[in-house]
């Protein structure tokens, strides 16, 4: 009989691990409880024991790769030379629908899944661990043709085996494929449309762009992240905090304008613009400059993830922060000008960090540079105020040691 070995969910903050070393070779025999491989999680390197004895027949995850938790990594068989179906999926398990915290995973928020969205399994994490599926070869073939995800199909064959007709029935019943205009997408796009045209047609925008020298910040960040690889701090985290510091230094930017009245805001809160393919979500962050950077980074991750899952924090209600921040740097965008969200006075658009050659004392040096553009409402902010804000931003980014000190 064949047994599929999965990568157990060993991490504390992430659901993946690196395959460090296979302790057994293909063909070798091992007994129950014996260490089969060594993995490296976010916290530690540890052995994974076999839950069943047998012969190691196939290794599905090479040494050195990052594998998502619950994914098949090896195949064992009871005897040394029996033939077996090489597909990882079909084996004898019925996974329980329990998540990391013992709760049903259906609605379980994964605070860290934002950073894992590139994984093939991240899509399924909402429904719990990816289920190993038992399906007839013909059913697999048909599923491929019809682009059916077998884990979604209920099998009616022996022991719940998925048959070809199960796949076809499922394909008939399923919703129209993405691309043909789903209702939810239209709603999100409509919301974005009304906010963008309302803002752009009523708020007189003007733009000020600066190249921030982020060399010190990047150097500090590299050192810090090497020390704490499981709790990385991003360019965005640093710049959100520095922007809030600059905002605290620039009370003239922190003024709201509505119905002909100017209102000074007392706290330096910011509004994060988060992409949600398609559409946008606005996530308020109360006084980020008052929070130590590692904690701020964690809060941003958790809050953004909560917002992506539709659980918007309602800390501010209609009383929105006045400075918004939008970042496309992770996509390599050099710089861009953003539209001010309704209720805000300005928005800072952050571009990618790039290498820029510069002359210093006659020497050619590399300066890590980040292009930022402040779009501001000219009824509230004038050019000098915008320039001073950017100057304060550069100041806080440059004196990065002050951020590092309490990190």
């Amino acid at each position, binding site marked *: 009989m064949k047994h599929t070995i999965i990568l157990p969910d060993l991490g504390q903050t992430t659901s993946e691990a690196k395959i460090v070393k296979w302790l057994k070779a293909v063909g070798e025999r091992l007994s129950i409880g014996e260490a089969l491989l060594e993995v490296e999680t976010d916290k530690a390197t540890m052995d994974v024991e076999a839950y069943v004895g047998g012969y190691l027949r196939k290794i599905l995850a090479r040494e050195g790769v990052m594998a998502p938790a619950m994914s098949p990594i090896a195949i064992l068989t009871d005897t040394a030379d029996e033939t077996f179906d090489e597909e990882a999926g079909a084996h004898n398990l019925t996974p329980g629908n329990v998540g990391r915290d013992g709760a*049903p995973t259906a609605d379980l928020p994964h605070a860290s899944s934002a950073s894992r969205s590139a994984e093939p399994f991240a899509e399924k994490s909402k429904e719990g661990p990816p289920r190993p599926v038992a399906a007839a070869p013909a059913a697999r073939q048909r599923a491929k043709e019809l682009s059916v995800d077998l884990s979604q199909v209920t099998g009616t064959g022996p022991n719940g085996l998925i048959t070809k007709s199960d796949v076809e029935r499922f394909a008939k019943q399923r919703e129209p494929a993405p691309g043909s205009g789903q209702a939810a997408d239209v709603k999100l796009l409509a919301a974005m449309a009304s906010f963008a045209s309302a803002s752009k047609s009523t708020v007189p925008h003007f733009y000020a762009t600066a190249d921030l020298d982020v060399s010190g910040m990047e150097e500090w960040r590299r050192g810090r992240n090497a020390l704490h690889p499981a709790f990385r701090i991003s360019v965005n985290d640093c710049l959100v905090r520095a922007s809030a510091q600059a905002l605290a230094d620039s009370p003239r930017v922190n003024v709201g304008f509505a119905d002909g009245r100017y209102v000074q805001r007392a706290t330096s809160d910011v509004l994060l613009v988060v992409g949600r393919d398609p559409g946008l979500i606005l996530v308020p962050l109360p006084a980020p400059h008052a929070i130590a950077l590692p904690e701020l980074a964690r809060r941003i991750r958790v809050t953004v993830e909560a917002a992506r899952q539709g659980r918007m924090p309602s800390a501010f209600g209609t009383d929105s922060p006045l400075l918004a921040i939008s970042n496309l740097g992770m996509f390599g965008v050099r710089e861009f000008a953003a539209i001010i969200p309704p209720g805000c006075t300005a928005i800072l658009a952050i571009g990618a960090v790039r290498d820029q050659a510069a002359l210093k004392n006659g020497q050619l040096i590399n300066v890590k540079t980040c292009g930022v553009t402040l779009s501001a409402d000219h009824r509230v902010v004038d050019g000098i105020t915008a320039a001073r804000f950017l100057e304060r931003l550069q100041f806080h980014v440059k004196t990065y040691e002050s951020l590092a000190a309490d990190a």
Partner: protein
Amino acid sequence: MNPSLLTPERKLAMYQRMALCRAFEDLVNSLFLQGRMPGTIHQAQGQEACAVGVCEVLREGDMLTSTHRPHEHAVARGIPVKALMAELFAKSTGCCHGKGGSMHMGDAALGMLPAIAIVGGGIPLATGYALSFKYFKKPNIAACFFGDGAVNEGIFHETVNMAAIWELPVVFICENNKYGASTSIHSVMKVETISERAAAYGIPGRTVDGNDVEAVYEAMLQAAERARAGHGPTLLELETYRFAGHSRSDPGGYRSKEEVAEWKKKDPILRFEAKYLAEGLLTGEIITRCKAGIDRELSDAVKFAEASPNPLPEECLADVYSE
């Protein structure tokens, strides 16, 4: 102690309980490796004699509190294995209706308060039960498991002192497995033993071999009799060792391989087997039969858990507040 209290039947029953505790934990580990169970589990392999020796003394109506490592306590206290397994699978038939999970094993109706994962959190609750037993003149006692990590918490000192001055019927049981998560007890405590702290509260304290189920039983029996007689609490320190890491995400690299191997030689179950195979109380056949029975019971429990329904969303707020 009175040797007649430990009849051969009782010894065999304790052996069977220990074997069930171990098999339960091993099965949970296997389910975890198969991806059928989440990893936020704290396992107690190696500490069976503590759980079983203590619970064997408890009677109906007595109350036990536990820790973040409660599986074996619950099995030893006699909470049905099906209800425990279903709880681990987050099913509505679980002992906490599937809403508690690994760290909240227990059933107050069966004499074990659902475990509290907060370090030291069970200590004041057990003492509260003891106060109520005394106030309402009930013949019961409370027993309270906690780890070595709890004895430097303020709540430990405050509660033990209070239980001492009021002479409450409670037994404080420290399972000293030498490490609070990854911290060695000797790096956070100046005295040699935990039990000697009892002197500070004016109560008896005893350090016991926590891997010898008979020694644990005997010490617990004395402490329980003292409590039932109205003479107040006792502090027991059971010296033991967990074979696994603190939790499934902990490889336990802070302990040397030699140290772990040394303690595995003191495995409470193997020790019992070695002693009583030699004395003739146990035979290979008894052991085989015992293990076969346990395998059946556990595989039934898994089937039961897997077939049980999930908790309903509308039950989300049930059992949260007392009416």
